[in-house]
């Protein structure tokens, strides 16, 4: 448990480092070479050969444009392009649309970034949780440190008794479980 907390702290630190890199541009006037520039985080690595990571898969999915926009707003694209491994519960556009009117727009406002980050972290676990290893009643501690609870019936998995896993897509740095409802962290 402590270890997971440390890991999450680490991931946050990575996130902060990548933010500070974006702010400070280390362009130097004395550079002699004219070669290809490499900048930004791992999401910018040019690589058409490797299997796609969780972010690239989400970006490539027409059903996840809201999620991708939210990840960008929360500045989590770089983190989720990292080595992971991650389990991402990925609500579809329809799942976001099912939220009370105006919820998504409200969360996307800059002043609500913390709130948005908390919700997105509630959709991510560190580690690879495959359907075949999921148990009825199992809890998973998510990246925001709140638990989700799984229920398994006839091989079908439901999260928090509200979201069905409707598809699972392996990624280079983990796995995506597509869900049909947005998971809301327990009220504090």
């Amino acid at each position, binding site marked *: 448990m402590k*270890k997971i907390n440390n*890991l999450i702290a*680490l*991931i946050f630190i990575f996130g902060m480092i990548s933010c500070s890199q974006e702010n400070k541009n*280390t*362009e*130097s006037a*004395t*550079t*002699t*070479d*004219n*070669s*290809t*520039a*490499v*900048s930004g985080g791992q999401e910018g*690595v040019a*690589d058409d*050969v*490797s*299997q796609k*990571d969780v972010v690239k898969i989400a970006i490539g999915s027409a059903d996840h444009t809201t999620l991708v926009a939210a990840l960008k707003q929360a500045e989590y694209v770089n983190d989720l392009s*990292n*080595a*992971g*491994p991650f389990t991402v519960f990925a609500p579809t556009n329809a799942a976001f649309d099912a939220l009370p009117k105006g919820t998504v727009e409200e969360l996307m406002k800059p002043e609500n970034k913390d709130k948005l980050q908390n919700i997105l972290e509630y959709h991510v676990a*560190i*580690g*690879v949780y495959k359907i075949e*290893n999921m148990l009825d009643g199992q809890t998973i501690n998510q990246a925001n440190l709140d638990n989700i609870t799984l229920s398994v019936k006839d091989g079908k998995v439901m999260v928090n008794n509200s979201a069905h896993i409707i598809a699972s897509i392996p990624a*280079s*740095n*983990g796995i995506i479980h597509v869900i049909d409802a947005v998971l809301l962290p327990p009220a504090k």
Partner: protein
Amino acid sequence: MKKTLNVLTGLCLLLIIFSSCKPKNAVNTVSSNAAAKSYVAPGKYDEFYNFVSGGFSGQMSVYGLPSGRLLRVIPVFAVDPEKSWGYSEETKPMLNTSHGFVPWDDLHHTELSQTNGEINGKWVFGNANNTPRLARIDLKTFRTAEILELPNSGGNHSSPFGTENTEYIVAGTRFSVPPDNVNGDVPISSYKQNFKGHISFVSVQPESGEMKIAFQIKTPGVNFDLARCGRAKSHGWFFFSCYNSEKANTLLEVNASQKDKDFIMCVNWKKAEEYVKAGKGMKKNVRYAHNTYDENKHSATSTFENDVIMLDPKDCPDMVYFMPCPKSPHGCDTDPTGEYIVGSGKLAAIIPVFSFTKIQAAIANKTFDGAYDGIPVLKYDAVLHGEVKKPGLGPLHTEFDANGNAYTSFFVSSEVVKWRLSDLTVLDRVPTYYSVGHLCVPGGPTKKPWGKYMIAYNKITKDRFLPTGPELAQSAQLFDISGDKMKLILDFPTIGEPHYAEAIPAELISKNSTKIYKIEDNKNPYVTKGEKEAKVERKGNEIHVYMTSIRSHFVPDNIEGVKMGDVVYFHVTNLEQDWDVPHGFAVKGAPNSELLIMPGETQTLMWKPERTGVFPMYCTDFCSALHQEMQGYIRVSPAGSSTPITFSTGTNQPKSNP
């Protein structure tokens, strides 16, 4: 003896003169904008790859230029536990020889493959100077793809230099030895009767790169030192420097320095090809290893060859000529036009420059100065373009730029001298720190040098870096040669001892670099293509573990049923298909290295447990946030135990306490 003493006294005097001329303070020789010239900003790429021989490390290293950043050490002739080279079952055959498994060698020279006299970025070759071998490294993967042993050789020093389309890589023996197919149990003092030199011409298959000894040429018992191909107008010829024309077999320091001239041997290899085709070669019974690494099987195989075709110059007129060259020549370098062959008598105070046009005329007119062991010796004055007079002391090696200039290293006077080929005028000289050996100009040994930089590889560093006890790093020194004067811009330490090196524009290689091995192409007989296929099988006393690794677990990670006396083979397949995500594997107590397995690859670690118990195993390469969780256990029971083979991941849950 007296003569030797005189020479030595002269040498000492010269030394004193030269050393007194040397600048006292290195700072003086560093230009003020040196830092900017070698600075490559974080995240930016270097302009050139620099392939540097690792000398007695047995490896080859790759640096970026102009930064001097170490990019990779490629294991070649020496085992490398970091990369499981020579430790995994798949790589062990690469180091097989007719002498058995040889885990080390001394890699002196590099040769980048060429097309039409220009570097093509496909392969780099390396030579083994102790147990004679040639290696070919694939520049898509930066891995050693092939190692070929060379028979009839003793120390493959005059190697691995190639022709302008890499038709051949040559391998000249540094030690003459009794040939492999005769009884070698002869008195050493019978050198003159029984010892022979041999030069191998190794053909390189243009597509696959596969090497084969096309033929060998039997030569007098001299010591071959270095070599260069003819290029452009001299394409079809090869030039080999040799020393010890005295045929000494002891105290060569003195006894091989008697004559005022040794030789550069000129070989018309197109003629040699004709003789081979005409059946003039004799098949000689020898034994040598040929090891190849199959990129799809992810494993090496050794085959043993049993003969070579030998050409004897006695039966093959007009194929080999000797050209006199002052005082134990070392370097032998052909300029970009192919007209000039620069010899470097390491004990001489001149640099002789030979003319290919004059060599051809001397051969046509039979302007000979007698013969050496039946091989015609060309008249020195007839083939000489001219001599660079008093350039420095101890000339070793020469590289070229695109503007008709040559750069020669001087070991004894620790300097590099720039001179003009056309009129042999000395243009500039710079000190090196200290005792320089080889030089490298990007594209220097080709028809089209890129110039821009010259790198000097130094044998001795003394006070140049922070001290690290008695053993100090050798070094490379980077000079800017874009202007009239050579300007020192960077020192950087190297691995092992750097001998020759070559540099190549980065884009010729970087665009082809392999990122992952495709799992569907994996033909390793022990591959496990998915976690469901993972298993443990007993075959007699062999336990085969078909294991997978992916972020962040092994399948299986709990194994029981191994017994004392068993030999365990862990066949680990890295299921990742993601760039730069290798997994490692190690098991406690194994007298072996780790495995380092690239994405899509299978590698095997062999382990004979020497005690009973439970042994941890883990991933050695920080792969992910849960890398530290990537671990498992294997249980070893006594011989005769009834513990059955079981294996699992995630299901062998702890039993609760009673």
